[in-house]
């Protein structure tokens, strides 16, 4: 029974007890009340732990819970909002719980189950499952699951998770970015605003602080770790960022068009014609990144010939020459 509980309760017990206590209070609890009455702190108070140590523990617990999305409200002193000695803490139910009027139909739930299953082997998979669990706990059931489809999003880039976190927290990031054709990576400082998958590759869209303009970066070209700095930016910049990023990529694709000749019936014809616009001679294929498109075209070997632009043709020739040289052909 609780009276006999050890003075060293597992921390998750203390965290959940704290949530129960702060949800139950209307006017809020002071730190002193929490430390002397909430199970987990109370026992350690009784066992003679220093007030300083307990207060630090409380601060850490608050941070942990906020990271879980638990909204802990601090009600300060009216006269002096910076004075937290008499501050009261509470968790407003309306902020904590899924709103009462949110209900999901059976068809919506079936769709969410499908949507939640798309993330393979990434932290997004655990997030999706956890989100689904909360929604399923509202008590609705799926009559007819959607079968016959297995959609997957692949997410191999280690930079994705820190970038997503930085967007949520509106913090400036720093990373080393290697542009093809440049000898060494260059450090970029960016306000990250959105993550976009375009043609199967992940991009981060944001405001590049060094060039003072919006830029889109390929996650594949971020070398080394992404550093989340302490500098924050205005959350309003995030509004509509996904659409702006997408529009930007589509703009680039509309401006860059390659005129190609493809041999009918080949792999190249199959892969390229899906994206192509008809031209008088050959096909016109939009692209967003000359280096990545040149990589693809080189893989088709003799199945495709680049007519223009010249820069793309040169890139493809360069790759074919390098391949031939590396495999013992005439250099």
């Amino acid at each position, binding site marked *: 029974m609780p009276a006999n509980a050890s003075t060293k309760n597992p921390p998750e*017990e203390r*965290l959940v007890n704290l*949530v129960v206590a702060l949800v139950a209070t209307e006017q809020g609890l002071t730190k002193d009340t929490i430390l002397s009455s*909430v199970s987990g702190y109370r026992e350690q108070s009784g066992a003679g732990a220093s007030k300083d140590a307990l207060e630090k523990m409380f601060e850490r617990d608050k941070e942990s819970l906020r990271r879980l999305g638990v909204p802990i409200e601090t009600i300060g002193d009216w006269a002096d909002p910076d004075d937290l000695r008499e501050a009261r803490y509470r968790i407003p139910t309306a902020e904590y719980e899924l709103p009462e009027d949110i209900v999901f139909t059976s068809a*919506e739930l079936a*769709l969410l189950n*499908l949507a939640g299953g798309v993330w393979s082997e990434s932290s997004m998979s655990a997030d999706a499952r956890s989100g689904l669990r909360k*929604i399923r706990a509202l008590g609705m059931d799926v009559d007819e699951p959607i079968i016959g489809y297995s959609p*997957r999003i692949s997410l191999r880039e280690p930079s994705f998770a820190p970038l997503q976190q930085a967007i949520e927290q509106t913090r400036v990031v720093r990373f080393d970015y290697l542009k093809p054709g440049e000898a060494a990576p260059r450090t970029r400082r960016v306000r990250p605003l959105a993550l976009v998958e375009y043609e199967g590759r992940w991009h981060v869209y944001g405001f590049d602080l060094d060039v003072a303009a919006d830029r889109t970066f390929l996650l594949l070209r971020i070398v080394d770790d992404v550093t989340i700095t302490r500098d924050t930016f205005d959350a309003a910049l995030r509004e509509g960022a996904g659409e702006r990023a997408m529009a930007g990529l589509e703009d680039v694709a509309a401006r860059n068009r390659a005129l190609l000749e493809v041999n009918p019936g080949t792999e190249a014809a199959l892969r390229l014609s899906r994206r192509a616009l008809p031209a008088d001679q050959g096909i016109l294929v939009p692209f967003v990144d000359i280096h990545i498109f040149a990589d693809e075209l080189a893989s088709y070997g003799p199945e495709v010939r680049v007519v223009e632009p010249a820069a793309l043709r040169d890139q493809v020739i360069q790759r074919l020459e390098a*391949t031939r040289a590396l495999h013992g052909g005439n250099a």
Partner: protein
Amino acid sequence: MIARKPLIATDRAALMLQLVPYLIGKGEVSIAEAADEFDVTPDQMRAMVETLTVIGLPGDGGYWQMANDLFDIDWDLLDERDIVVITNSVGLERAPKLTAREAAALLTGLQLARAIPGVGDTELFSGLLAKLARGASSTPADVILAPEPVDAVRDSVAAALQRRVAVSFTYKAPDAEPTTRTVDPVKVLIATGQWYLQGWCHMRKAMRTFHLDRVSDLELTDIAIEHGEDPVPGWFESGTGDIVARIRFPDSVAPLLGEYLDRAAVATADGVSIATMHVADEQSLRRLVARRAGAVEILEPESARRAAAAWAESGLVQYR
């Protein structure tokens, strides 16, 4: 299979906060079913449920809590039948809001689901987007997928799946002559904008996977499917061929090789990696090395090395 990683205290607290509304919603649930729902072992679930019974409201005078200030369960049902029933609850009855990350993971998944013909109309999707946005504790990061155009082939495959009839089509495998196939559709795999149809091939009398970009002249037949319940092959059956190949590349290139390396044995020394893998045909290797020109080299088999050089040469001839 979901990997069961060790949980840290904060993760366990998050699960406990979800456990109460789940148990209350269920009324009565077995340890096994609850463990499955929470991706934990039955022993972990039992420990979580037992922990719940020492959680409750702070005691009135600042000291010990009364029994009805704590969560309680039916201990007899748990001990005798492995069934969990909450008999006293002190809060947390409704599920917590979604975190920004949880909402983002579902919102992005919905964008992909939206590309599937017939699974939901615009109204259903926009309703869901609004509910998820309102159900999130803070604004999720924009994680956007570029929309993929749905073409006639994809539409027809969706229709065949729904009507449970076989389809016939011309299939053009890479570096092979086109063949005509009749297939009982079983499942559609969707990855990075590509659609793959898995189904029972009447010609091969076995389950096969077809890349829909390689499919043309697709028509629905009136043959009812017979092999819809057969087991389908795993996600990607790459790396199962008979030919043993070895490729060499700078370690930094590895992320660009992605799924090629999933089933390869890779040895790295001084920043240079050598991967040994099984491939079904040599032709795909020459395409791989030309794509990663100058960075990836075929070491074996020798015939694939020569094929890569010849592939590049015949490409270059076009520009002379």
